[in-house]
């Protein structure tokens, strides 16, 4: 493999890994804030216990998310330095804003939240977790704004003197329609992930606990809360996904054509549910199951009269514009990751409806089928998130900065132009080091998450301690310590 291939593998591995952890952080922070708010508002200690229980899982996960996030920032410079040089004037700004506006915020308030349970007045402590929730979501906004420049460069102009893209409007950059849609879609995915996480774990416990009181006051309400939020999130995903899809048909027709394995330009093509073939060779594609009307609707919101460009024709267009080269993404990956992203949504949707039905009118289901269903459902939103990002990033290949059909024609960059001038061996060192480290940490992460889930809410968290304001000469035991 060349340094380019190795760099791509490293980016793929580290980013997919990071984004297993991050959606749970982004989604669970507001859910924790909601749980804690219910406790503070009603005084119902069940919600205190739930906050503590899910809070521990949140923190185990948060640590690894923060740790792997540092790599994300460093590797743009380490492995993609030519890309950094080309877009730094534009791309650096949202990253720096993320640090200044969001990351400082969430990191400081998470410390206050962890250690402040008895140090701060209840309402102030509650405000801290809301600050964390706002911070992590603001983080996502800036990062996705940066990513959206790579998908649909706006607010910038190519400067032939410096040979790079330069920012002309921060407002246009941050209100990129691609970015707004992707942000809403990503947050929807994160909320779905966290809500499913809460619902699945609570449902599992509802079935397995031997304490009837806990099942009624703790796990049933948490299951219902998780399921309701998951359903709302799933609905928002369909809506925002549709908006994003319509944008992509215009902005990156090649991505959408390859998502459909649509090889030749057609009018009102059918939506493909299943195709077989090697997919990287258009000639071998056999469409097995197809549905009419869907694809024109996805693309333009009408059922007929829509002409969609095929991969082969786009390839010819791009060759004419950008010179010889292969401008087709990996069809197999884009086709299947697109279907995986959408298809896996069925699990949390069905699970939420099932669990809501089984818990209706105060019922407490004790069937093991439900708890098994919960365990199967739990990882699905995580996989769907990964699939979605694999689709959107792989679908953009071979571009690292896609060209904007209505923007500055000189702003575009291929991965080959963006990669650092390293020998393959050096990047291999990095890829192997990080992959081994990540693998070891994944084992510990999973083991800790599982251990804390199976242990359930702990005894020492059953009653909230009274808040005591700090006094300088007090030698009381700390309420929380590492």
């Amino acid at each position, binding site marked *: 493999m060349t340094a380019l291939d190795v760099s791509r593998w490293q980016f793929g591995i580290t980013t997919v890994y990071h984004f297993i952890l991050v959606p749970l952080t982004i989604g669970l922070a507001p859910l924790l804030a909601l749980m804690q708010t219910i406790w503070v508002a009603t005084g119902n200690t069940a919600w205190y216990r739930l906050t503590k229980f899910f809070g521990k899982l949140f923190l185990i996960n948060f640590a690894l998310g923060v740790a792997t996030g540092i790599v994300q920032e460093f590797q743009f410079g380490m492995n993609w330095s030519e890309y950094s040089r080309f877009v730094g004037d534009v791309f650096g700004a949202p990253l720096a804003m993320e640090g200044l506006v969001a990351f400082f915020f969430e990191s400081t308030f998470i410390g206050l939240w962890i250690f402040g349970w008895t140090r701060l007045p209840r309402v102030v402590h509650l405000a801290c977790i809301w600050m964390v929730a706002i911070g992590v979501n603001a983080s996502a906004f800036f990062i996705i704004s940066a990513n959206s420049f790579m998908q649909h460069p706006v607010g910038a102009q190519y400067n032939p003197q410096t040979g790079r893209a330069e920012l002309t409007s921060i407002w246009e950059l941050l209100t990129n329609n691609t970015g707004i849609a992707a942000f809403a879609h990503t947050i929807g995915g994160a909320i779905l992930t966290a809500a499913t996480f809460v619902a699945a774990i609570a449902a599992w416990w509802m079935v397995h606990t031997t304490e009837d009181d806990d099942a009624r006051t703790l796990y049933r309400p948490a299951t219902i809360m998780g399921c309701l939020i998951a359903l709302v999130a799933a609905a928002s995903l369909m809506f925002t996904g549709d908006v994003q899809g319509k944008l992509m048909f215009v902005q990156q027709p090649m991505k959408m054509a390859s998502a459909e394995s649509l090889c030749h330009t057609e009018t009102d093509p059918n939506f493909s549910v299943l195709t077989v073939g090697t997919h990287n060779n258009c000639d071998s594609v056999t469409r097995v199951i197809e549905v009419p009307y869907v694809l024109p609707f996805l693309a333009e919101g009408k059922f007929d009269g829509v002409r969609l460009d095929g991969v082969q024709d786009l390839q010819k267009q791009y060759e004419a514009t950008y010179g010889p080269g292969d401008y087709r993404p990996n069809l197999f990956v884009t086709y299947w990751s697109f279907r995986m992203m959408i298809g896996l949504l069925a699990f949390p949707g069905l699970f939420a409806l099932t669990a809501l039905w089984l818990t209706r009118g105060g019922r407490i289901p004790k069937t093991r089928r439900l708890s098994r269903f919960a365990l199967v459902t739990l990882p699905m939103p995580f996989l769907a998130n990964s699939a979605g990002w694999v689709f959107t990033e792989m679908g953009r290949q071979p571009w690292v900065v896609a060209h904007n059909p209505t923007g500055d024609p000189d702003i575009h960059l291929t991965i080959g132009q963006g990669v650092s001038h390293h020998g393959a061996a050096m990047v291999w060192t990095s890829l192997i080091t990080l992959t081994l480290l990540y693998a070891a940490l994944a084992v510990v992460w999973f083991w800790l998450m599982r251990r804390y889930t199976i242990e359930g809410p702990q005894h020492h968290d059953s009653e909230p301690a009274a808040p005591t304001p700090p006094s300088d000469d*007090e030698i009381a035991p700390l309420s929380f310590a590492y």
Partner: protein
Amino acid sequence: MGLQQLWFITLAVLFIGFFVLEGFDFGVGMLMEFFGRTGQGDPEKHRRAVLNTIGPVWDGNEVWIITAGAAMFAAFPGMYATLFSGLYLPLLVILFAMIVRVCAIEWRGKIDDPQWRRWADIAIAVGSWLPAVLWGVAFASIVRGLPVDADHQIDLSFGDVLNPYSLLGGIATAGLFAFHGAVFITLKTTGAVHGDARRFAIRLALPVTAVVAIFGIWTQAAYGNDVTWIALGIAVVAQLGAVMLVLTRHGDGWAFLSTASVVVAVVALLFGCLYPNLIPSTLDPAWSLTIHNASSSPYTLKVMTWTAALCTPIVIGYQSWSYWIFRQRISAEQIPPSIGLTRKGARR
């Protein structure tokens, strides 16, 4: 003053913030193990008391490097691209160390088991020692100059980072952070831990002063200019002041302020030596990256200036508030029993 000069200073300020704050975090991590070996009380409680001095704040402190990196990306993309790809392997080691350290600090108390804590302690020590040394090596190497070619690419050879001056830089920052950390622990603790911290600070005082002084004077002599004399002077005075304050027990707060000033002055000295370069080229001075040829466009710098001007006071405000909330000194006696789970769950 132009925006490029302003952003050079801003970048220096962000790195100063990082090294002052994360400096004592590194110091705490570097020394934590030794607090468990002083022979008094329960060693585990001593270690935990030390770790908890940074407990609520270390995560916020670490963000300074993320922001410094991102600010470099935004304001001096040429420097970011050249430096991060050029210092590839040192940065990889720093990344490795920082990842391991974050997880070890957060996960250490999650499982109540001596073997588990052993591993976490090793990870915290490695994760603190490595970056404490390597940041110094990296900065000294930059000040010394890197083989930047006409295309602003660096083909690094071992001698560029493994040379007497760079290694001395590494020893100086490691020593400085250990000393800074020990003084920080005296400020944040009472009882036996406080006494131990003070003893460590006294033991470190002389060698650290010597190595920082040699590094400072070498830096000034080889790469300094008229203005950097001021930074060197402040560093020396502050270091001597810190040593006096530690020896005479005249206020832990003042001693901490002094070690913090040393860190500020040393980082200012290094940045002062660089100016107006960002990365001096050892191949041809004309190929050096400067604040002029590596910076962003005026518009981007203007946007970033507004962002920084609006946000930095707020950041400093709530970070200070967080330090105020956790201002209380802690002692080993206050450390509650571990609430971590056992390694194996009870059979249900």
